[in-house]
């Protein structure tokens, strides 16, 4: 079994077998990441492809701070974001209200859900909600980072997250009832 470091070194040298192996190891998981940002699985594949090209071209810049998978994942997320950048700015302008006043009861959902159901819910989320929710809850970015990545204010990021959770909560309840 070849180690990750050896695999990366092989890829940097341009060894096709190493590149192929790295791709095979990570691609399905990364497509799972990209898929959350695109309703269309074809578009998700486009982002995956572009993301991997960036990974291979910038491998020598990977500084081994943090996990390699995390580094690749971040590239995938940024690539996915880039695809949407043209449209994103239209999704936030109406969110100036104060977030602090909103109280969200967040912590009492029970039951389990299939990926398909949750994916369907994500697909139907308004784009602004979808991105902030994905970036904050799934990718673990801070509001400050999200604000920078999406060119919005931190408050907008916070308010979008609150709204996203409200939206999801409603949808999850609907699905919960339907499933019973």
């Amino acid at each position, binding site marked *: 079994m070849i180690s990750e470091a050896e695999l990366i070194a092989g890829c940097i040298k341009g060894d096709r077998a190493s590149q192929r192996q790295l791709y095979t190891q990570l691609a399905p998981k990364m497509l799972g990441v990209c898929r959350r940002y695109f309703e269309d699985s074809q578009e998700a594949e486009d982002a995956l492809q572009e993301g991997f090209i960036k990974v291979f071209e910038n491998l020598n810049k990977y500084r081994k701070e943090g996990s390699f998978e995390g580094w690749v994942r971040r590239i995938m997320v940024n690539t996915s974001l880039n695809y949407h950048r*043209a449209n994103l700015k239209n999704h936030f302008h109406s969110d100036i209200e104060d977030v602090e006043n909103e109280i969200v009861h967040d912590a009492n959902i029970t039951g389990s859900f299939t990926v398909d159901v949750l994916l369907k819910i994500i697909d139907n989320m308004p784009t602004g909600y979808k991105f902030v929710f994905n970036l904050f809850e799934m990718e673990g970015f801070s509001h400050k980072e999200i604000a920078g990545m999406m060119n919005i204010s931190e408050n907008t990021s916070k308010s979008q997250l609150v709204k996203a959770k409200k939206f999801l909560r409603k949808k999850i309840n609907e699905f919960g009832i339907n499933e019973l």
Partner: protein
Amino acid sequence: MATIGDIFRKTFEGYKVDPSDKVWQHIEKHLDTPPASGFQNLIKSKTAIIAASLVFVTAIVFTLVQLTSENQPTNSIQGNLTKQTKSNDLSKTTQTSLTPQPNSNNNSNKNIISTQTLTLATNPIPNCQPIAPTQNLLQNNLAINNTSTQNTSALQQFNPIQNTTIPALTNTETQYTPKTNPVFTISKNDTLCKGESLVIKATGGQSYQWNTGEISDSIKVNPLNSVLYSVTVSTSGIDTVLNTFITVKSCYSLFVPTAFTPDNDGKNDYFHPVKQDNIGIEKYEMKIVARNGKIVYSTNSFEDMGWDGKFDGNAAPENFYLWYVKYTDSDFFTHELRGQVYLYRH
């Protein structure tokens, strides 16, 4: 008890989707041509352009200023003159290499001139004033002045370059001229349903400027009306404008039944299209034609009950009838539909 985030994280943990084979094929194809594409990618990033051109120009300015400041301590005018010609030469080279940048060009000119006037002013001083301390003092002053110009010139250089990122590219770009003539492509003309989005991609350039204001190689669009997207693709100083036309149509449609039974049982007694979604209908017309070519029913109102299966007050025979519907929806898209319906009597 779990938060929404917990549920999503838990469910998506280890979530995998197998990509289709063509993804790797495309990546491999790309990897087969690494140098050109690698550079293109580098060039694509705005910061890289700024950084590269900034380093390039500041390096020149710095050497220039250094050269001219070296002039000052020398006592012989001859020495000064030769050095000045040198710096003049240099200034010429900067000018030529910077020609595509009108702003920074002016600026670097200004800088060169100002440093030169400074050096020229120093020239007579060592010769005309033999008193050593004063001379030193003056030289010190001048040295200070000079360093301050150096600083400001660095600052002045910074701003115009930031504003003119794309022209600045040509300095570095020429070294990497692609071997073959560049081929530019853009996504084909396409038709979309209103509300759908589409990614339009251009290739072959080192920088892109879309009429939407984007500068990436692909843009995602969600047009409400048919619209022309154009992109200026640039590489090696060549600009090409590419267009793609996206037709937007409404995909709302009416559902038209394929059979009806006008027997007054309250079910399917009338032939009438049915609305899907919350579509609004602004204009409407429907015609039903019998096989012999006679119009058996026509209306201009969607609110009508529809055809009751009668023609001239008599029951029309069981048969296929052709129908034609034309309507304009509330988004002002006009739709034309045709088909046949079976009138069933039992």
